[in-house]
């Protein structure tokens, strides 16, 4: 097949940047990584990118294709080439570029290290017997264990872009891999640490991480699991945690969330008073509904009883998310083509 690519070339030592065109023949089954190999072998030996395994295992070949992070060795080019598209290839986002498609992963690894990604069983000496862990208990972190440290999830993370100190999706998913490990003895300390300033509650739920992850780790889901575990252990000092808790109270009591109460419940009374001017400006436009009389949804008793029942059954913390993972693991995005066909049909 005939393949055309545009590649953003960059050299950090000179600061030079250029978008270069490449066109060449490649076998039909070629991946983006195979295509880059052809470019490097036959057209331009100075092109830099990382690779090793070529089979989605080592996590070296993360890069952007048309602005979205992909693993080059996982991305087949046939459909793209057949459609006559000329994708733009560039380095991953949210990390400094060293050269062409190679980024400096130092910050990524530093955050990984910060979550202490190793087992801390809480004892030093070997035990007499093996400690056997059931498959069911390990299933809690099955997804998180699939991470290959490629960094694709961090490339478009919106919180990371706004706060470079945010721990980020990869390290948080890794943290869940240890928080959820039944053999780890450090769960509470870990959760305490992750509930700080640049941790769990920094995530803005943009879902770019889950969209991009080539291994199905679904970091946003892992972060929700960390949040749920923190709450289960009563670690809820953070404003993000308080905010989340108030939703539960609202759903249980009146059914609908009352924004009026959200600010003091999240930020505390003192902050809320500082915010009065802002709140009044919203109230003027009816954005802040008065708390009295509270608007209570019909048959609200059911929601209250449901809460009690669910609490009694004790599917608490991350288990409430894990129970749905099997189903979510089975669904896939239905390709655009169907809609595109409809779209064109309707346009005519």
């Amino acid at each position, binding site marked *: 097949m005939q393949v055309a690519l545009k590649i953003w070339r960059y050299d950090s030592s000179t600061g030079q940047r250029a978008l270069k065109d490449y066109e060449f023949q490649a076998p039909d089954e070629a991946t983006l990584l195979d295509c880059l190999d052809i470019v490097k072998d036959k057209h331009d030996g100075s092109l830099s990118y990382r690779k090793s395994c070529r089979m989605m295992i080592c996590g070296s070949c993360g890069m952007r294709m048309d*602005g979205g992070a992909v693993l080059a060795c996982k991305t087949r080019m046939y459909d793209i080439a057949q459609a006559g598209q000329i994708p733009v290839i560039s380095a991953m986002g949210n990390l400094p570029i060293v050269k062409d498609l190679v980024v400096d992963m130092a910050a990524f690894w530093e955050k990984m290290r910060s979550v202490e990604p190793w087992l801390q069983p809480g004892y030093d000496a070997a035990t007499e017997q093996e400690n056997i862990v059931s498959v069911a208990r390990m299933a809690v972190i099955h997804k998180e264990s699939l991470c290959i440290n490629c960094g694709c999830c961090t490339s478009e993370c919106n919180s990371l872009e706004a706060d470079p100190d945010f721990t980020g999706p990869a390290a948080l998913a890794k943290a869940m891999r240890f928080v959820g490990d039944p053999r780890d003895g450090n769960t509470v300390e870990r959760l305490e640490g992750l509930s700080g300033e640049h941790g769990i509650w920094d995530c*803005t739920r943009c879902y770019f991480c889950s969209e991009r992850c080539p291994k199905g780790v679904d970091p946003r889901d892992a972060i929700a699991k960390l949040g749920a575990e923190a709450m289960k252990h009563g670690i809820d000092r953070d404003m993000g945690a308080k905010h989340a808790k108030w939703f539960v109270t609202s759903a249980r009591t009146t059914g609908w969330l009352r924004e009026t109460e959200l600010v003091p419940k999240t930020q505390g009374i003192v902050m809320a008073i500082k915010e009065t001017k*802002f709140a009044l400006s*919203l109230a003027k436009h009816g954005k802040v509904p008065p708390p009295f009389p509270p608007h209570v949804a019909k048959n609200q008793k059911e929601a209250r009883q449901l809460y009690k029942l669910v609490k009694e*059954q004790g599917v*608490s913390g991350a288990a*409430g998310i894990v129970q749905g993972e099997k*189903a979510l693991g089975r669904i896939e995005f239905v390709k655009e083509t169907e809609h595109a066909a409809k779209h064109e049909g309707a346009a005519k």
Partner: protein
Amino acid sequence: MKKVAYYKGCLASLSAKELDTATQALAPKVGLELIELESVTCCGAGDIHEAEPDYYLHINARILAYAAAEGVDTLMTVCNVCTLNLRQANWQLQIDAELRARVNENLVAVGVPPYERNVEVRHFLWEIAEGEGYELLQKAAHKGLKGLKVAPFYGCQILRPSKILGFEDPDRPWSLERIITACGGEPVDYPAKIKCCGFPIIQAREDVALAELIQPIEQAYEAGADCMVTPCPLCHLSLDAWQSKLKKQTGRDFKMPILHLAQLVGVAAGLADSELKFKRHVVSVKPVIEKLSV
């Protein structure tokens, strides 16, 4: 008329009532008969999912069950976040029979009908972006937007995770642009239209959230947009109400009017002021109205 169960969510019920009135007024013009659900709670946004995930699943199952009990095939939402939460719960229940059995048992125990017949959760945006809804929209939007430059803002949770939402390519969405064009407006393109507005952390991490919020507004402003339109009342709240905070923090006053999707189409379809309720916006929509009245 296509009968759909209509789930308003908290925002359209309380602080964004203008979204509800505009949607209700527009619905018959685009072939939708709305059956409003009453015995329902908040979907919990991502918050109950994170705080009490098992309860999240149950209250969403309850919403789905009441929609199914109306005998309709579609549960229509007007909020990105409701759409994701309900669709996510729906997938879990539809694929995992064991899970559904347990949840249904609990629903029945508290007097809720079990969720048996499946419904599909669809956002109002999807109803009017293709098929019959789109055909009718073209006719209904006869008053037109007269070349108004509109910046579409999708936000996150109508696009990602795409496997749960699955309507359009999350990196190259087209639905809002198509609707803007059908209404006689001119869609303005800008990169941050698929990014986050920062709403989920606007109270807990204001600085981070504002650094996110400024991107779409600034880019739309620089691309010459007369206004922005969004399918999500939470995006609307942060884009509209928090603009004053951006001004305070950065000194830049964008004065960018933010319209709900139903309002934008509503203007083109000639809805009354009492249905559009622009007075409820913090940033004045007047410049848009004036531009359209010349």
